[in-house]
């Protein structure tokens, strides 16, 4: 078996206990926390009878392992129950909301890579010049901006004052591709800025580190053009740690999408989590968290495999 395939298989097998643990943790979130979930769901103001009814409906009167097993088999069949809010099936909601959130995350990712990586590279190449200083100052400031506030400011500037981009009348990318993309420009800017700054900082330091290596000197001594040295030798190697950081930070984007979607009133998965939160719809939140976390783990697995592919040294172990 080729080592790469074996590595992937290993990782997939290691995923099983992870997913099991994840499901237990998601389950525990609601059922083991102090206080009565039924009481929490009623906002702490239900009559004793209402509480008892809800307890029975949630199955709180049965032993914990039994409840876990029932919940797990149900969730694995793709049945997340009904939303208390508008009685739609949670799975249906999820299916039509997922493309939106994925587009948002993807656009933020493209934006942050498209800005962060070149910025970091330029900053490293023109180290200690005014370009570098400006880039680093911008990075520092960008790392400090709350995404939702940045979003608000972008709305004020680009939608209310300049009237350039729409903020009401969302249409999904599935139904109206170009309008959907236009609508998601501001949200993905707000969401992606933090990651762009993080990447710029990281790329700068890893390019600087790589540029100090012997093989770069060799490449230059061979008389290669500076562009070739920079892009083929330095950047490629500097990007290896960057890939890991991107993988880890997809989680930040997924989590951040909840805030950004709420702000921009985009009907995505994150907004669904928050709406369920307002409605104290704990079972829905539980299922959504589990699904999003699984998505997150799978993305990280993909990144990990990509990483092994990019850095052949890792395949030996």
């Amino acid at each position, binding site marked *: 078996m080729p080592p790469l395939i074996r590595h992937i298989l290993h990782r997939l097998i290691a995923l099983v206990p992870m997913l099991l643990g994840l499901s237990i943790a998601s389950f525990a979130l609601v059922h083991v926390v102090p206080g009565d979930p039924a009481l929490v769901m009623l906002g702490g103001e239900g009559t004793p009878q209402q509480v008892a009814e809800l307890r029975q409906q949630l199955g709180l009167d049965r032993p914990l392992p039994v409840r876990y097993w029932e919940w797990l088999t149900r969730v694995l069949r793709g049945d997340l129950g009904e939303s208390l809010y508008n009685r739609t099936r949670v799975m249906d909601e999820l299916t039509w909301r997922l493309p939106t959130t994925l587009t948002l995350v993807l656009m933020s990712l493209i934006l942050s890579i498209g800005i962060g990586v070149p910025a970091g590279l330029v900053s490293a190449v023109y180290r200690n010049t005014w370009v570098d200083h400006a880039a680093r100052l911008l990075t520092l400031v960008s790392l400090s901006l709350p995404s939702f506030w940045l979003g608000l400011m972008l709305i004020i500037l680009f939608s209310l004052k300049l009237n350039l981009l729409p903020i009401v009348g969302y249409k999904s990318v599935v139904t109206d591709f170009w309008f959907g993309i236009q609508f998601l420009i501001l949200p993905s800017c707000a969401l992606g800025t933090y990651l762009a700054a993080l990447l710029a900082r990281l790329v700068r330091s890893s390019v600087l580190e790589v540029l100090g290596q012997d093989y770069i000197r060799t490449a230059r001594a061979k008389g290669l053009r500076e562009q070739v040295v920079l892009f083929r030798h330095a950047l490629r190697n500097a990007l290896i740690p960057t890939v890991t950081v991107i993988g880890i930070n997809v989680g930040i984007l997924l989590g951040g999408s909840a805030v950004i979607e709420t702000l921009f009133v985009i009907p995505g998965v994150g907004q669904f989590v928050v709406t369920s939160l307002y409605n104290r719809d704990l079972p829905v939140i*539980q299922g959504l*968290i589990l699904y999003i976390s699984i998505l997150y783990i799978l993305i990280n697995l993909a990144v990990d495999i990509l990483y092994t592919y990019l850095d052949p040294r890792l395949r030996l172990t």
Partner: protein
Amino acid sequence: MATPADIPGPRLPRGLAAHPEGFVRTFRQLRRNWLSLAGSLIVASLVVVALLTPYLGLSNPVKLNLAERFASPSARHWFGTDQFGRDVFSRVLYGSRVSLTASVLTMLGAGLPGVLLGMMAGVGSTRMGSLIMRGMDLLMSFPPLLLAVAVAAALGTGTRSIIMALSVVYLPRIARVTRGVAVSVIAQEYIVAAQALGMPRWRLMLRTVLPNCLSVIVVQISLYFAEVLLAEAALSFLGLGEPPPQPTWGNILQDSQKYIRDAPWIAVFPGCAIALSVLGLNLFGDAVRDVMDPRLRT
């Protein structure tokens, strides 16, 4: 007889004083210190403002004053007033108390058990170590903000549940860092020596390993502080924090959304306060790192 000038002694390499590298380095050091200074100043003023707010004679941050609704920023109301005529400046200042308290308590709530677990994982038996770390891995496999949202949802709204939720998010991160340092400290010879002398394990952990790990842990915690402040604002923006009318930076921003067309100042200033604080904390964190662990300098 040899004159003093002939005696060979330590000499500066020729031209160092005039060497541009020397100037650049000094300048860089200076700029670094300047940034550190700015960070420390921002953090210090944040703490002072949070502590002194009730004694500054500001207008009541929760009392309605409908006669002065939506006043734009002026000498009377520096940051303008909101939909109930409350002074935004006063609300932002009072909000700093909530944000800062929540962040400090989160760092304690995540830091103490995190360091303890990390220590136990690093010093204890292999089996216990891997058990603890698998648990931590599990917590880290949730997207951070979503985990916080879920925990806060289960606990109900309020600053207390935000603190607990963020503690759950940061606990595994701190535990992981602590274990990493602890393992590298344990490999040192002086630990082997202490063990050979028969020092009990708990004592070894508290008296020898912990002090040697502390600098890295403190650096990490100070760098997380800014993140926690941002996350706290985000959660309270989502409405998970202190319910209105009590002002927090997050809930002022949540409120402000409805009025951004006509009263953008309600949205602008609390965000500036968050951004400035986070910037200060980031710079301060870097400064702490430079002082305590120069190896990590970038």
